[in-house]
């Protein structure tokens, strides 16, 4: 019991525990399968958002093309699912049975060679991670080694998003074009459209997301995380302290891309299709907004940002079909103007101090009562009690929002 208590007192652990409880217990209990599936979809965007926290919030590298990596992960998964949905039996009315329907419509008569590996589930799982990371490596290595950064890098990522969208739409016979890949049914024989499958996929997605948050927290606490912050503020100082700055940026970019790819794969699984509308410039910018609203310095904050913004999007578009875009814009502008560090920043600067003050006050009153109850004959106990209180008060990190990490010095 006490060990759990001390574990929870470690900075960051409590917030992850609360998030885990919310995702794994509260949501499944509170919502029906339709809503749960929707939340699962929002969570796939959260993967991208936590990647952006590491890349943009900590590393200071803004990418406006994260949709590319989300899309690549999603397409890799969708290709596997599509192949499985296109067995010769179900596609026997096509002129070439056994290939995906859109290929048949586009007069392809054989499966393109680069589709073949996606028959393998293992290859697909590796590809979901490796393909986005490989592209991220190529782009970022070329850019960062040449010291291209800041706005220029952001513009290049936008260009990549545009190129990939155009490519997917243009190569209709190979990619399904603007419609994307639809009618995804089973994964290794397991029907992903049933209610029970949706629940299982939700748990898998939420579990994987939590794992990524834990891993991300671990990276933030490592020297790599400290260096990311250092690079963001004084790149030259890091370089002239003997670090190859470009490789650290490449690593952060690849990491963010890999996480986004996982998100994309879960999207394809849960939503049942993948299309270029999740790859281009607009969705990429929306993904950055999720991160900004949630708080670009906080991994947990980014998850809440993704949930809140997407839930608002659904809610607004259901209730005010004409107004919802304006309401969304108001939300974005409002949050980013009033709280530059997003919801997580708001929590750190307002709610946390308020809560601390309140709990301190309550503790003081409790202690007073105890003193009065015990009278004067129990001094030892009282002193001990007050000692505990002092350490508990001093314990929570009172750092401002921008200063997130505190690996205990000395």
């Amino acid at each position, binding site marked *: 019991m006490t060990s759990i208590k001390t574990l929870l007192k470690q900075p960051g652990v409590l917030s992850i525990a609360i998030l885990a409880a919310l995702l794994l217990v509260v949501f499944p209990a509170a919502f029906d399968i339709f809503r749960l599936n929707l939340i699962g979809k929002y969570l796939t965007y959260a993967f991208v958002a936590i990647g952006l926290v590491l890349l943009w919030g900590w590393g200071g590298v803004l990418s406006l093309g994260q949709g590319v990596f989300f899309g690549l992960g999603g397409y890799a998964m969708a290709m596997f699912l599509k192949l499985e949905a296109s067995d010769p039996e179900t596609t026997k009315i096509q002129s070439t049975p056994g290939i995906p329907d859109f290929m048949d419509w586009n007069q392809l008569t054989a499966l393109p060679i680069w589709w073949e590996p996606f028959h393998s589930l293992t290859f697909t799982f590796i590809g979901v991670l490796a393909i986005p990371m490989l592209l991220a490596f190529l782009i970022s290595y070329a850019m960062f080694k040449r010291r291209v950064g800041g706005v220029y890098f952001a513009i290049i990522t936008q260009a990549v998003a545009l190129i990939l969208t155009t490519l997917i739409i243009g190569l209709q016979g190979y990619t399904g074009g603007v419609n994307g890949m639809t009618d995804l049914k089973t994964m290794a024989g397991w029907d992903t459209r049933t209610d029970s499958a949706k629940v299982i996929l939700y748990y898998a997605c939420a579990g994987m997301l939590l794992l990524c948050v834990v891993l991300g927290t671990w*990276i933030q606490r*490592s*020297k*790599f995380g*400290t*260096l990311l*912050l*250092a690079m963001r*503020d*004084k790149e*030259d*100082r*890091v*370089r*002239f*302290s*003997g*670090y*190859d*700055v470009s*490789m*650290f940026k490449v*690593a952060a970019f690849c990491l963010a891309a890999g996480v986004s790819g996982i998100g994309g794969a879960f999207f394809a699984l849960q939503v049942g299709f993948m299309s270029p509308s999740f790859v281009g410039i607009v969705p990429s910018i929306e993904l950055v907004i999720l991160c900004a609203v949630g708080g670009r310095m906080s991994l947990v904050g980014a998850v809440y940002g993704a949930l809140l913004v997407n839930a608002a999007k659904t809610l607004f578009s259901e209730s005010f079909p004409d107004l919802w875009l304006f309401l969304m814009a108001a939300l974005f502008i409002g949050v980013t103007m009033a709280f530059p560090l997003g919801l997580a920043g708001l929590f750190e600067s307002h709610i946390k101090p308020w809560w601390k003050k309140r709990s301190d006050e309550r503790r003081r009153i409790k202690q007073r009562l105890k003193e009065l109850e015990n009278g004067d004959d129990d001094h030892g106990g009282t002193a001990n009690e007050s000692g505990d209180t002092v350490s508990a008060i001093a314990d929570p990190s009172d750092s401002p929002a*921008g*200063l997130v990490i*505190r*690996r205990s*010095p*000395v």
Partner: protein
Amino acid sequence: MSSNTDFVLAVEDLTVSFDGFKAIDNLNLYVDHNELRVIIGPNGAGKTTLLDMICGKTKATAGSIKFKNEEMTVLPEYTRVRKGIGRKFQTPSIYENLSVFQNLEVSFPKGRSVIGAVFFQCTDEVKARVQAVAEEIGLADTLSTEAGLLSHGQKQWLEIGMLLMQEPELLMLDEPIAGMSVRERELTAELLKRISSNRSVIVIEHDMEFVKKIAQKVTVMHQGKILAEGTMDDVQSNPQVIEVYLGH
């Protein structure tokens, strides 16, 4: 092309031109082991550019820079640092959002690759080293302070401390006492004397009082070239130097 030397640093025929303007023009400079060299010169003489070229921030157009007899001009910045060249910038360049401890810890020369940094452990060795350096620069009491909250002078010291963490054999300081109070200047002069006892140090400075206090050998630069070299007294009595610099 260039000679073998016993010098820590041997700069020979170094030239850099920006659109035809030669900021450094055929310059030769030799720095000995455990030497504290001060470079002075009027604004635009090319002092900072020279340091930029030695540490790799600016690429040379021609010439050679040898550190411990190894050619540096072809190496990227971080490799030069790893070989033992440390550079302090003109304005204090520290990580304001990190604590003093973290500033020093990040500068510890281990875990410099991406993977190495992920698995880097702050061992007792690192802590002891941080403590030792913090005492050297007089910041041992402020280890947990956010570096942005330090005074200007303390920031300058912190950056020197970050360099000391790397144990460089050649330390280059660009105007280390800029913006310091009289007392801080005195402390800095003592610090420089201490740290130059077992390494070579190049200091750029404008403050003549300070230069007199620390300098063993002074190099005067003017228009990208070396105008004079010698003890402070030699240099101050050199008529050319008086004309371009001290006479102003």
